[in-house]
């Protein structure tokens, strides 16, 4: 999912809403009997209920296809070929491997020895690709396939104290696959 597409969706929907809102505000100056609006209001409500209900159900069903959870990712990418153990600690990361191949399903098994952190993977251009919460007492597993080589960055995305913004580590992704 590209975050810029999400922004484009918001701006498109927001523009439609803003135009409708502004039109109604401008027309608030007119004199229209409320009785004559009540049937239209009911039709609009029913129409919107059907439209929003349909979109909501479609989004809900579609989202099953791209859930970030283990079973969905295994179905999409296959079983993970490489396991990486990740430990978060105020304010740094420990990874069992810091060079990983592109094109291979990798399972990051993350946990924390102190407070909550969040393991956020940023691509070389600085775009967030995915994340998983790093929780004390739990091991969360994120399966991910790097599409291309480069220097990626792991950032903590859950506020974890005064050094939160410094909790960063590079991750090298190579073109070669590991047997």
């Amino acid at each position, binding site marked *: 999912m590209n975050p810029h597409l999400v922004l484009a969706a*918001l701006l498109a929907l927001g523009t439609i809403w803003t135009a409708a809102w502004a039109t109604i505000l401008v027309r608030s100056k007119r004199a229209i009997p409320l009785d004559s609006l009540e049937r239209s209001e009911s039709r609009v409500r029913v129409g*919107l209920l059907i439209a929003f209900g349909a979109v909501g159900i479609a989004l809900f069903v579609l989202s099953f296809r791209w859930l970030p959870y283990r079973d969905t990712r295994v179905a999409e990418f296959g079983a993970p070929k490489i396991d990486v153990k990740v430990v978060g600690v105020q304010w740094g990361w420990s990874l069992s491997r810091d060079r990983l191949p592109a094109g291979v399903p990798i399972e990051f098994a993350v946990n924390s020895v102190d407070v909550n952190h969040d393991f956020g993977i940023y691509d070389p251009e600085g775009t*967030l690709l995915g994340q998983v919460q790093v929780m004390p007492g*739990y091991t969360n597993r994120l399966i991910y396939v790097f599409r291309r080589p480069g220097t990626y960055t792991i950032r903590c995305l859950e506020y974890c104290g*005064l050094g939160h913004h410094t909790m960063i580590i590079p991750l090298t992704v190579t073109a070669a696959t590991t047997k």
Partner: protein
Amino acid sequence: MTTPSRTLAASDGGVLRAAIAYMLAGFGGFLLMGLLGLLMRLDQGGLLAMPPQWFYRIMTLHGSGMVASVLLAALGGLAAAVSETTRLSARTLWIALLIYLLGTGFVDLATLVGGFAGGWTVLHPLPFDARTWTLAAALQMYVGYLLVATGLAVFCTHILVATARTYGGLAKVLAWRLAFTGRQPDGALPRPVELIAAVVAIDGIICALAGAIYLLPLFALAAGLVGNVDALFAKNFVLLFGHTIANLSIYVSAGLVYAALPLYTNREWKTTWPVAFAWNLVIVLMLANYSHHLYADFAQPLALQLLGEIGSYAVGLPSFIVTIIGALTLMYGSRMRWTVTTIFMALGLWGWVFGGLGALLDATIPINQVMHNTMWVPAHFHTYFLLGAAAFCWAYLYHVVATLSRTPDSGISRAAAWLYGIGGAGFVLMFFIAGANSVPRRYAVHPPQWQIYPRIAVPFVLLLTVSLAWLTWDVLRHIRPAWIGTRGGGGGSASAE
């Protein structure tokens, strides 16, 4: 300006004075927390050098203080609106206010004196596992939250009992016969604002209980009575508490639109079947969607993750289809005049929907993977908070002050209200753009490539500051005649100019 006729005429003067105290305390807190927000954006833009320790302390105070302030203003407005038909106890309102403010005092103490910087979400075990603040400071924060929750519970219990007594029982004030059978009740139907008051009071009490369930084990942990509190349990309950208390702000303040907008459009907002059914749905839906904050916690049961997504979609339906469409229908063709109140209400409708769109996108699990914990989160939250809930609160504050002081608002005040919308929109838009560029939230230090967003946002915040400076002055100079106007049984019969 038009001062609406006969509004607040039947309200008890003592109750109105308590309600005004709530609204003014909320407005004052909002201004102070807003200034802290400006400092944070200056720092993130590289325009102010603030040590990270102070940034995070301010961030903690800004978040908790802003939620508490806007909710307080909304509760005051609700008390004033409900008091038109329902006998409330001024003493109980003052007691609830004092407990609530004592709680905010503890939060101030924890952050400003104790150095607590655990974030307003106080995500366990961070408050216990700090390097730069003491356990005492964390406990001050928790005591503050517990007192705020207690004040909220006292207020909500009083509102619930009072409205139920007025209409002959809980089922009647919630209009269950109309909502679930479509038939008219035997007795009088509550006005929408009383129905909404009962709805938010129920959720307010549940929210306060969730806060207690979160906090009591942590006090036991601090006292050494238990050895550990599970991080996932704690996160579920702190968000059931924190997310719901933030949601309450918007739903309470939406009740104020039901109360005031009819007076400015000269149209009645009836308790129809859609209104009754939708608001009864809100009781459940407001509590069902908090778990969208835990999508990245893969240990959370899948059923709760999916409930978070479908619950987030569902809660938008009654809000948009009933409240937003209802308000716009009331405005459309009504020959409504623009006053500070109607401008803020119009802005509030815009912000609630625009912020809601951002929230709905983020509530979709695959999208959340790349938007959560970025600036997208403060973006949508600030949109429906600053331009939604808070705007509705200031609309109602102006409505009460104008009605009781019988003073018309000025062209400058109306311009200031529109300026609030322009400043607010530009400010939140930069959050959205930063979020789409994956800028993390809650970072004290932004590298140069991220500083462009707060730098563009700051001038818009200054527009907000100018707007609010004028509106503050305007409210303050009318507050004395408004206070006097509460004597002798409420607002009397204010006349239209």
